[in-house]
C-alpha cells in the first residue's frame, strides 16, 4: 500500500553532460505531466531546454497501491 504519510514530490536526477543549447552543466531527468500525458524528460535546469522527452506510464505516479487506498476508503465509508 502506498505510504500516504510521506508527501509525494518529483525527484530530479542529475544527468551527466552539458546542455546542447546553453552549455550549462545542469541536465536533470524527471517526470512531467503535459497536455500529451506523462513524459520522462531530460531538461536543462538553467534554460529549460528539452534534451530528451519520451512517453512515460499512462497514469504517472498513480499505481495499484493508490487504487487500493481509494477502494478501501470507499468500502470503509459504506455502512
Amino acid at each position, binding site marked *: 500500500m502506498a505510504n500516504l504519510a510521506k508527501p509525494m514530490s518529483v525527484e530530479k536526477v542529475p544527468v551527466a553532460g552539458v546542455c546542447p*543549447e*546553453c*552549455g*550549462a552543466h545542469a541536465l536533470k531527468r524527471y517526470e512531467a505531466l*503535459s*497536455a*500529451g500525458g506523462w513524459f520522462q524528460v531530460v531538461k*536543462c535546469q*538553467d*534554460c*529549460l*531546454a*528539452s534534451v530528451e*522527452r519520451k512517453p512515460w506510464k499512462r497514469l504517472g505516479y498513480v499505481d495499484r497501491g493508490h487504487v487500493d487506498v481509494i477502494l478501501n476508503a470507499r468500502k470503509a465509508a459504506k455502512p
Partner: protein
Amino acid sequence: MSGKIIAVDVGGTFTDVVAVEDGRITTAKVATIPASSDKSVLAGARALGVSDASVFNLASTAGLNAVLTRRLPKVGFLTTMGHRDILDRGSLVRPLEAITDPTWRRNFGDAGGRPIIPRYLRRGVKERLNAQGEVFVPLDEAQAREEIELLKRCNVQGVAICLLHAHRNDVHEQRLRELVLEILGDLPCSISSETSALIREFHRASTTVMDVLMKNIYGDYTKRLQKGLDEVGFKGEFNYSDCSANLLPSDYAMQRPYQLLMGGPAGGAVSAAHFGGVIGDNNLLCADVGGTSTDISVIVEGVPWSAPTFELEHDLVVSATSINIVTLGAGGGSIVMATPEGDIATGPDSCGAEPGPACYGDGGIRPAVTDAALAIGILTPGGFLGGKKRLHPDLAMKAFESLDTPLPLAQRIRYGWNMAINNIAEGLLNISIGRGIDPRDFSLVACGAAGPMILPCLLDQFPIRRVIVPPYPGLFSALGLISTDRVYSDHRGHYMVLDGRSAPLLNRMYSAMEARLREKVGADQPGLRVLRTFDARFLGQSWETPLIEAPAGEIDEAAIQTMIENFRTTYEKLNANRFDNLPVEAVTYRVQLVLPAAKVTYPAAESAGPPQPIGETTLRYLYDEPRRAFEYDREQLGIGAAIAGPAVIREETSTTFVPDGRTATVGGHREIIIQ
C-alpha cells in the same frame, strides 16, 4: 522612368525572368536551386542582361520556404511575465479539419514544430502596461538582463519582443531592445510596437517573430544578391515584391521584411488586374495553374480581393495586407490514381518537380494530368518548352495501364483528365459563390504553364463568361512585378468609437503616420498618391470589416461622418444590412504612399489574315471517337483571327486547347478569348 526593367519570380521548379525595354518583352527560364535560390535569381538576371537595367524587381519565396520547412535560425522571444505561451495558445480556433475530429489535439510545449520558437527560448519579463498604455508595473531591468543573458548563452541569432499593450506605449519595448543590443551585440531585434503596432497580442507577437526570422534570412540574402548585382555592374533600383505584390525598395523592405513572406503568389493577381485594365475587362477570376497547385484570385472592378492578415499554417498568422489567394491542390503534375473501389481520382497528390510526370522519362511511373494531355494529343512529344524537352507517350500510356482498376484504358485517361478539370471547377465555384460573386459576370484568366491547356475545358462545367489566355501565360506571374506600384505603408491599432470626439486623436494618428512615410519617400515625388484605410466594426462585434476607405487631409467631424458612412456602405454590400442605429468602432488605421512605377505595356495585335494551321493532331479518348484537330502557332495569329474547336494553339512556353464547340478569337492585345 525609362530603360530596361527586369523581374524575377522564383518558383519551386523554375525561376521565371522577364525583361521589358521600350515595350518589348524578352523572357528566360532557369532552374531553381532550392537550397540557394539567390544563385538562380542572379543566373536569371544575368541571362537577360541585368547590367544595364534600371530596375530589378524580385518576388522571393526563400522566406516562405524556410518557414514551411522549418529551416529557421534560432531566435528568442521576450514578452510580459506570464504570457510566454501567447504563441502556443494562438487564436484558440481549431483548424477546419479538426472541427469534426474529437481526437485532434493542439501541439503544446516542446512537441511538434509549433510554436515556431521553443518554450525555453520564450522568456517572461517583469513589467506591465495597462490597456490605456500606462505603466502599471515598471520594467524590472535586472530581471530582464538575466533573461537576455540566458538567451546569450543559448546563442540566439535574433530576438523578437512583444509586450502586452505595447501598441499603445512602446516605452518598455524600446528599453528592452536597448538592453538586448547592449548584451547580445548587433543582431536582428524586432519590437512589436514598430513591426506591427496592432491590437491583439497573438497576431502582434506572431508577426514580430516572423519579422525577426525574416530579418535573419533576408538580411544575408539581400547582401549576397546586392553583391552579385554589383559585380555585373547593375546600378539601378532593386525592389522586392510584398504580399500585395507592391514593390518595396530593398533597404526599406529590410525594415519590415515579414511583408515579403507571400510575395510570390500575389504576382498573378496584379498581373491579371493590370492586363484586365488594358483590355477593358475588370471583373476577373485569375487561375494560375502550376505543376502541383492552382492559385486562384478574384479581381472585382479592377481591384484584387485583399485581407489584412494571412495564415501560413494553422495559427501561424502574419498581419500584413495581402491579396487573397486560394490554393487548390490541382495542377499539371496532379496524380491520376485508382481508388480502392476502382474509380478514377485526380490529385491532390502531385508528382512534383522530381520525378515529374511519367512522360518526362525521369523515373516517374504514376500517371499525371500532363500524361493525360499527351495521351489525348493536346500535347505532342516534341512541342514542350519550345522543343527543349521531349515527352514520351509510351511511358504515359504505360503509367495509365498500371492503374489497378477494371476500367478500360480510354476511360482511365478521359476520366483522369475530366476529374482534374472538375477539381478546379469545384474550387472556383466555392470561391466565387462563397464571396457573393456571380461567375457568369466574370472572365477567367488562364495563366501558368498548364492553365491555357486545362482551363478552357471548364467552360463546359462551370458557368463563366469566357476564358482569356493572356500573352506569355507561363510568365504572367513574373509580369505582375512590372504591373504594380512602389508602396510605402504604415498602420496602427486603437479602439475608438467613431463620433465627433474622436476626430482630434484620429487626425493626429493619420497625419503622424503620413508625415513619417513622407520623410522616408522624400519630398515632392511626382504622381504620389496617399491612400488611407481603416478596419472597423459595430460596437460589440468581435470581428472587423477590413480596408474601408478613409478621407484624405484633416480628419474633422465631417470626415468622421464620411468614415462611418463608408463603413456602413461596405458592410451593407457584404452583409446586406447597415444598422443605422449602431455606433461604429474603428480598430486599425492604415496609410499607404503610392509611387507610380513603370509598367509593362502590351502592344496592340496586328492583323495577319485568316489563321493558317501549322499541323494537325488527333484527339483520342476525350470524345466518343477520335477527332482531328488543327494546330496553330500563336505567333502567327493576327487580331480578329477566329479558330473553331477542337483546336490546339502552340507557343514556346504554353499550349492553349480550344474544346469542341468553342471558338477562340484573338483580341486587341494578342489575348486569346475562348467562349
